[in-house]
């Protein structure tokens, strides 16, 4: 039972607890539906249009940039843990990486990828 065994057991207990919270409303709270209750909330008036439609492309761009930069952030981790052993060599290697990262970052900034308007 190395640590991961205990972690797996704990996850089972957490799963059971979360499942309880998900199942309870169906058992205890009796639904009394009617047509107006089942409508989506729109400040008391009837919904005027459907939700699906055009959406600002900004959000899509942010998601793409996140994937790129998050992968790069993940590559800092193994390096950081070994920094005491790598010393100057590690610093220079990472400096090269950060410069490349910085060029990409500056490009996105210049193209307006970070400005919301």
């Amino acid at each position: 039972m190395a640590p991961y065994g205990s972690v797996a057991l704990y996850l089972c207990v957490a799963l059971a607890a979360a499942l309880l919270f998900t199942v309870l409303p169906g058992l205890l709270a009796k639904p009394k539906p009617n047509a107006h209750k089942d409508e989506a909330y729109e400040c008391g008036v009837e919904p005027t249009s459907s939700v699906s439609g055009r959406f600002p492309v900004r959000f899509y761009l942010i998601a793409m940039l996140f994937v790129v930069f998050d992968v790069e952030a993940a590559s800092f981790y193994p390096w950081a843990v070994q920094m005491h052993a790598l010393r100057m060599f590690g610093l220079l290697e990472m400096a090269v990486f950060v410069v490349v990262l910085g060029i990409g970052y500056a490009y996105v900034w210049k193209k307006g990828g970070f400005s919301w308007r």
Partner: protein
Amino acid sequence: MDALVATLNAAPLWLVILIKSALLLLVVVTTFAYAMLFERKILGWMQLRPGPNRVGPWGLLQPAADAAKLILKEDLTPKTADPLIYRLAPFISLITAFAVYAVIPFGENNGSLWAIGDVNAGILLLMAISSIGVYGISLGGWASGSKYPLLGSVRATAQMISYELSMSMSFVGVLILAGTTSLAGIVHAQASMWFFIPQCFGFLIYVITAVAETNRTPFDLVEAETELVGGFHTEYSGLRFGSFFIAEYVNMLTVACIATLLFLGGWNAPFGLTMIPGILWFVMKVGAFLFFYMWLRATLPRFRYDRLMAFGWKILLPAATLNLIITALIVALRG
């Protein structure tokens, strides 16, 4: 007492871990309940009103009353919603909020750690689990089939993934100093000096991103009442709304625990005050951090969305990168 210890030693290991896990979850949920009451009390005092004081002495039974109300409340599903994902989303939020406690250590007694699992990749597992939490919010808002939840959840997703970047970068400075990803190892590395002193910028960045990750004021655009009614959980009622609510507060507690472990010395005692046990120091530090959260809510107004995104990408991300490079430079020069 000896008989109890003997029974425990004789019990199979999996049973002991199972009991420990259930106890830990109970503590987490109870802490949530009273953190919520505490917050309402503090907000009350800061606004010169008494706060909840009707249910039980000093309002102490308020969490129980709230729980009973939420459990018995009618469970509504809009007819435009996707029923399966609508029900799945609060579950995802809740399970990810609970799951991170598998790797968080709370104290140490004669060399044995108070934790479910002492994983040597602790901080990686912690981030991996907690970043799944964004699915609960984005799916919940999307599956509601309603406009305000959709807007709220799209905002939330963009905000959470943007600030997650700076958050993971702010950890790197600590990892450079500690030289390990084990949470217990990071605490041991802070025996002589807590990392919020050499990593003051990292700590500042962590605190800002942590508030944004948990969608709290001043970063609570996710449920900006004046614009979005209730944000991603507008359509939820009863215990499903309660699940999101519990997840938010448990995430706050997690963030306070991480801040304590990584920057505030974990269970190390300050000024050599070792007569107070380490677990109490841990609880006090977490409590202080939670109070800071509530203080923020009472003090600061909300950000504007475009400024929030610009702040995350144009200021926090370069600042976090600069911080880790300077840390690496100092470590490389001084060893």
